[in-house]
């Protein structure tokens, strides 16, 4: 059982006041806060071990390399993946998805091929595919959403066919909270001979994830959304897949032999990590993974699901408030998007901020979904392990205030 009161002691940033009220941070889907264990890991790295990795013989270089590579192993373990070499570190989910679209896509997707996405994708899982389509002449097909905010699986099934080369779907919507049946969709993709890419930016931080059980081909996520530092993303690929791919970025550390006209590549995963990596932050990400593993992702999920249920209950009693997304908390992650007409989401966020409550307002990098919902923007509260019922009540109180202003 997670005790947010205990956990909060590890998060120095939460001790502050905002606009004269204790900070209530409910913008976790954008980025989470970092426990002191992660901050200390950064400090420790820079104060004891910092050096460039992989090519050094001196003590610091060896130490830094070991620490960096150890996190590859931890990341694999976190995903229940068997091979650390199948983990490539990127800057963020966005870069991971671009890597797939370029390094796998450019070689495997051709004119007339189809790429299946959904209307609830984050721009980071749309634009790289649009760019690929533009480069290759492939076509994008979008699966729609049911009135309850779930992915329309029948439509997905209908869209996947012999011309489908890749299906790329978010594991959990960053707006609706919807958890998608990616294993099932992956099975459809496999039967059509297509690859399955899972955008795990919102799932890895909040659900137990077993990439091998999911049966996907690529899985991408960001450290900064799961207690880790900014600047680290992860791309996992199914065993053997990275080996078949040409590199993406070229430069130091990803080569075996460089000649004037051509080069040969280092082994996977180094082939995909050109230049000096974000060493310190990868090392500190290890501390974030430890923190989550110590809590247990099952416990994290249980805590956030309970909080989501409580939030939905509290918010449903606020006059004029309508929520987007699935009705049952067990079918969604800890994200609640809502509208309170005539108050505009930006006004709601500003008033909430006046209460010290940090929520997000806008299109959440999901303009296709906004258009589908028929809104320009939504307000969104999203939860993490340090949030508790008091936070939800502070939000509800702020929203009552919105009603007093706009009512």
């Amino acid at each position, binding site marked *: 059982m997670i005790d947010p009161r205990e956990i909060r002691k590890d998060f120095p940033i939460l001790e502050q006041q905002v*606009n*004269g*009220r204790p900070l209530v941070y409910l913008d976790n889907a954008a980025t989470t806060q970092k426990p002191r264990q992660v901050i200390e890991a950064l400090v420790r790295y820079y104060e004891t071990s910092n050096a460039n990795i992989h090519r050094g013989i001196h003590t610091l270089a060896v130490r830094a390399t070991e620490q960096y590579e150890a996190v590859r192993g931890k990341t694999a373990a976190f995903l229940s993946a068997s091979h650390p070499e199948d983990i490539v570190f990127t800057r963020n989910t966005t870069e991971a998805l671009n890597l797939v679209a370029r390094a796998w896509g450019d070689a495997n997707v051709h004119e007339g091929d189809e790429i299946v996405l959904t209307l609830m994708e984050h721009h980071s899982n749309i634009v790289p595919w649009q760019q690929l389509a533009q480069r290759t002449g492939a076509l994008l097909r979008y699966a729609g959403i049911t009135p309850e905010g779930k992915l329309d699986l029948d439509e997905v099934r209908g869209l996947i066919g012999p011309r489908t080369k890749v299906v790329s779907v978010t594991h959990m919507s960053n707006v609706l909270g919807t958890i998608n049946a990616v294993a099932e969709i992956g099975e459809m993709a496999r039967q059509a001979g297509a690859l399955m890419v899972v955008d795990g930016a919102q799932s890895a931080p909040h659900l137990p994830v077993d990439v091998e059980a999911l049966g996907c081909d690529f899985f991408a996520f960001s450290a900064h959304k799961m207690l880790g530092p900014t600047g680290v993303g992860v791309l996992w690929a199914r065993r053997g897949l990275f080996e078949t791919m040409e590199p993406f970025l070229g430069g130091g550390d990803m080569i075996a032999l460089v000649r004037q006209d051509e080069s040969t590549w280092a082994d996977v995963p180094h082939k995909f990590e050109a230049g000096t990596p974000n060493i310190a932050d990868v090392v500190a990400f290890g501390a974030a993974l430890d923190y989550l593993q110590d809590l247990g992702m099952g416990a994290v999920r249980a805590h956030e699901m309970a909080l989501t249920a409580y939030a939905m209950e509290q918010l449903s009693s606020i006059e004029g408030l309508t929520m987007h997304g699935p009705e049952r908390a067990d079918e969604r992650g800890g994200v609640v998007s809502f509208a309170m007409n*005539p*108050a*505009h*989401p*930006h*006004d709601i966020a*500003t*008033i909430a*901020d*006046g*209460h010290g409550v940090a929520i997000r*307002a*806008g*299109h959440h990098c999901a303009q296709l979904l906004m258009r589908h919902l028929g809104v*320009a*923007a939504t307000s969104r509260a999203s939860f993490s392990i340090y949030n508790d019922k008091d936070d939800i009540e502070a939000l509800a*109180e702020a929203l009552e*205030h919105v009603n*007093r*202003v*706009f009512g």
Partner: protein
Amino acid sequence: MAVAEPQFDDLYREIILDHYRRPRNRGELATPSQRVEGVNPVCGDEIHLDLEIGDDTIRDVSYWGHGCSISQSSASMLTERLKGCSIEEAERVMGKVRAMLIDGAAPDDEIGDLQALEGVARLPVRVKCALLCWNVLKEGLQQATTAA
């Protein structure tokens, strides 16, 4: 709750909410001399202005668009304040509103209802909302003067 209502109440003054709820001069003009628009890409707010300018005067002005109470009320107040004004006066008002929003300058009575936006200056992230229609107006006035 014993704690006072938070400080942002001076942002959402009644006059702003009134313009938001009951927009003035909303819609298109039949024969605008200038039709200009602006979008705030970060938040998606949108303002369109129709201007009918002649004899160095804003004979008529209307707006439409969507967005938050600040961006929409600012546009509504703009139209109300500037309809019938000389371009010279419009530019003076625009200068004063911008100075209030950007530099935190004290407003004076010449800008009328727009003084209600004073509280926005304290919130850098919302200043753009209030400014949006004024940037659009600026472009419209420039078009009008170069066309003339």
